[in-house]
């Protein structure tokens, strides 16, 4: 068929009308990058008739900053637990407990400290911050955070450019509380990070490429990302250091400013179906909260520190807590380490 100018104009016009008319048939979804299955959005659109505008962020701080300064238009946002707490504190979230009938969640997610009754958030995907490493280059079967301070790894490690994970790692390494707000303890963490700095090739949250290609041998990293890296390079292994690790629960929240909260609720209900969330887990390597989907996920991820860690490991995991008025202290510390 020949595409005449007139056809083209008609087409654009129809597109414009579609945007204007379908007020409640749109969902603006703001998610972490690489944090969904390739088919999820398409299937949801087909079933619900809702058109999804999907946008990604790679830093939770950027996401928060946008919402805080009043960027509106997002209906559904994925936020890390500590950020959920902070957003509740800033009155940025729409309460959704009355609109969602929660399925049975995994026991350790029943009452997360950032939103104990799930009044504002529904757990989306969860994982851990541990160490990904190249088992061909590092053959010592490491079990401790001290690997990331090993002098033989000069310029061979990357550290996540997220202050919570990075400073938390140093606090775990020193045997201190990973959510510490004690200035003396934080100073010790800073010294420890400066001591580690010569080993760091760069501070980045895109750590998997370097690890896959063998540029780096070890990385402070997120479990699911390491699982994805392992799929491309089987030499990559992951462990949760004995000193303790962070457990993060990235959750679905609806901003108060959401233009289409109903569509967001529809997506949340859709996501909580076992057969939907199992696809997301299999694609991302991150575990989902729904008990009924566990039998459906890739067995490789079960009873494995990468996906669903066994119960004795779960006991050694800590939530990232809201830092309250010490947020700025952490920010400054992290800037001082990096400059």
């Amino acid at each position, binding site marked *: 068929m020949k595409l005449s100018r007139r056809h083209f104009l008609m087409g654009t016009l129809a597109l414009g009308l579609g945007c204007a008319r379908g007020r409640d048939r749109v969902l603006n979804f703001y998610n972490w990058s690489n944090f969904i299955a390739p088919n999820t959005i398409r299937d949801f659109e087909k079933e619900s008739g809702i058109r999804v505008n999907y946008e990604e962020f790679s*830093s939770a*701080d*950027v996401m*928060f*900053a946008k919402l*805080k300064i009043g960027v509106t238009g997002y209906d559904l946002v994925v936020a890390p637990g500590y950020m959920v707490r902070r957003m509740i*504190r*800033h009155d940025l979230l729409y309460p959704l407990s009355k609109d969602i009938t929660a399925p049975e969640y995994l026991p350790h997610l029943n009452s997360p400290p950032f939103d104990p009754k799930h009044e504002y958030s529904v757990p989306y995907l969860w994982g851990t911050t541990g160490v990904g490493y190249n088992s061909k280059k590092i053959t010592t079967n490491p079990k401790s955070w001290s690997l990331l301070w090993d002098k033989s790894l000069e*310029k061979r490690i990357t550290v996540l450019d997220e*202050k919570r994970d990075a400073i938390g790692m140093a606090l775990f390494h020193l045997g201190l509380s990973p959510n510490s707000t004690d200035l003396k303890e934080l100073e010790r963490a800073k010294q420890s990070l400066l001591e580690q*700095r010569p080993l*760091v*090739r*760069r*501070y980045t949250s895109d750590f998997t490429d370097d690890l896959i*290609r*063998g*540029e780096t041998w070890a990385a402070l990293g997120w479990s699911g990302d390491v699982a994805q890296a392992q799929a491309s390079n089987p030499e990559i292994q992951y462990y949760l250091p004995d000193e303790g690790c962070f457990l993060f629960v990235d959750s679905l929240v609806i901003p108060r400013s959401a233009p289409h909260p109903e569509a967001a609720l529809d997506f949340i209900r859709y996501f909580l179906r076992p057969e939907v969330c199992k696809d997301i887990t299999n694609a991302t390597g991150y575990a989902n909260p729904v008990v009924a989907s566990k039998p459906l996920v890739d067995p490789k991820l079960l009873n494995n520190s990468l996906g669903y860690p066994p119960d004795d490991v779960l006991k050694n995991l800590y939530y990232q807590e809201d830092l*309250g*008025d*010490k*947020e*700025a202290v952490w*920010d*400054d510390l*992290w*800037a*001082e380490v*990096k*400059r």
Partner: protein
Amino acid sequence: MRKTPWKLLAPFILFELFFILAPLCSVIWQSFHPVSPDYEILPQWTLANYRKALDPANLPILGRTFLYAGSASFLALILGYPVAYFIALKAGRRKNLFLILLMLPFWTSYLIRTYAWMTILQTDGLLNYVLLSLGLVSEPLQLLNTPGAVILGLTYGFIPFATLPIFVSLEQMDKRLIDAARDLGANDFQIFKEVIWPLSLPGVLAGALLSFVPALGDFVAAELLGGPDDQMIGNLIQQQYLGSFNWPFGSALSLLLIVMMTAGVIAYARVESGEEER
């Protein structure tokens, strides 16, 4: 009749007010306010952001910023001059074609082009492959996440800003001066040294400034091509705006940079007017 120029200037003045003065005032205003522990801007006035910005611990990052931006600008001039010279004086009919070719890579986003350098410089990347196949090195070199990579990224990023002003000044030069010099017995080197170079100097200075200033505020090159010891002031500023939420501190840092850039521009204007008087 005398009032017409003001009317004609009105759109320009409005443009300046909206797009330059208003944002700048907002940055200045923010920089004098403290923030709450949760980064809410408080109504009090303070100099604390400037004190923090002028902290001696920030000196290394400032020095590095000037070093990297200066090196990049210098390299851009050295590489850009012959190109501008060729296009302006030797390309003849194909001048426009070469100008388009010069600009062609810059139709792609700066970010994408910086990512492209990552794939060229990485350990198993193109450059190491070439070096290894030629037998110039026996082990792949670590090229990425080094100061050299950052300077390379900045040079590449801002080279047209150095080249085009040189091109313009060579292009506008009265070509008969070259013939005159030759008639008077000057050889090629003398023609360049005594005629072409002095006449292209305004372009060289403008090119130096136009490539130095954006390189000074850049953060992409250091972020993607640098390592932990290669961060520039732009990275620190970007982190205040997008990482934490400390806009007042970010504003103070930006103003510090603006003041230093302005000093550079004034110095340039002095040299420039000195040239004209000569």
